[in-house]
């Protein structure tokens, strides 16, 4: 029963977070705060799906760590790309 309730609860959370993202998209001007909220939302949603829908919370630790890491690295890249676009341009421009 716990597992059933848990999945139902996680689905509800994921739906609400998606609606929050949509609200942000339609109303807020992008700034660092919005970027951080979006990055944290991606990380949290990814973690919930990896742990509970994929059931990796109780599975092989290498797969679990790799999948969780993906949802730490991508949100971090979003924040870094916002903070340091000039550095990315410098690194990716042919001289």
């Amino acid at each position, binding site marked *: *029963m716990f597992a059933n309730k848990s999945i139902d609860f996680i689905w509800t959370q994921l*739906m609400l977070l998606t609606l929050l993202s949509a609200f942000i*998209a339609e109303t807020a001007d992008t700034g660092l705060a919005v970027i951080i909220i979006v990055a944290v939302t991606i990380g949290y949603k990814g973690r919930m799906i990896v742990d509970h829908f994929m059931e990796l919370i*109780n599975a092989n630790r290498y797969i679990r760590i790799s999948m969780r890491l993906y*949802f730490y690295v991508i949100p971090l890249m979003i924040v870094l790309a916002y903070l340091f676009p000039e550095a990315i341009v410098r690194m990716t421009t042919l001289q």
Partner: protein
Amino acid sequence: MGRNTGSQTLPAQSHVPGGWPIWVGIFSEMTEFAMMFVIYFIAKSHYPELFNEGPTKLNTLAGVLNTLVLLTSSYCVAKSMQAIRRDDTTACVRWLWLAIIAGAAYLLIKTWEYHWNETMGISKDTNTFFTVYYYTTFNHMLHVGWGSAAVLWAIFGVKRGSFTAQSHGGLEAVAVYWHMIDLAWIVIFPLLYVLR
């Protein structure tokens, strides 16, 4: 030994859901999507105005609806796994059909969105933002298409009696692959529709 959580017994610790081969595929696909995200970050840094303006021209409603139906389909697949572990094949098949209906809804919404873009004069050649948008979303759409076909195969497998409470590795492989498709969209949606 499995871990008992109420009425559900999760697989034993160190279990590889679906077996190693599907994870080779999943990690390959996740790498492919990661490369698309890196291209997005590079292109956005080079053309900030196009990437600030691009999302405002997209149909946000279509993006939100697609996120909701994909999350729901993932939820249905997770419920189907719980059902097969109870040996409740009827419920398992029902949840898998609901997942396919959600997948089909995604494909219909995406087709409508592409048509809407066309009427608004948006194409892959409009500018760099839309080239990235079309390449990423069309690639993802293909994954939803063949993922849905895999779920359909799983339904026939359950009906044939190929999957039981004791042996359902093939169904588990389809389930984790379907969740991977959902995970990719979890990143694509905010990058293309929310951030500007």
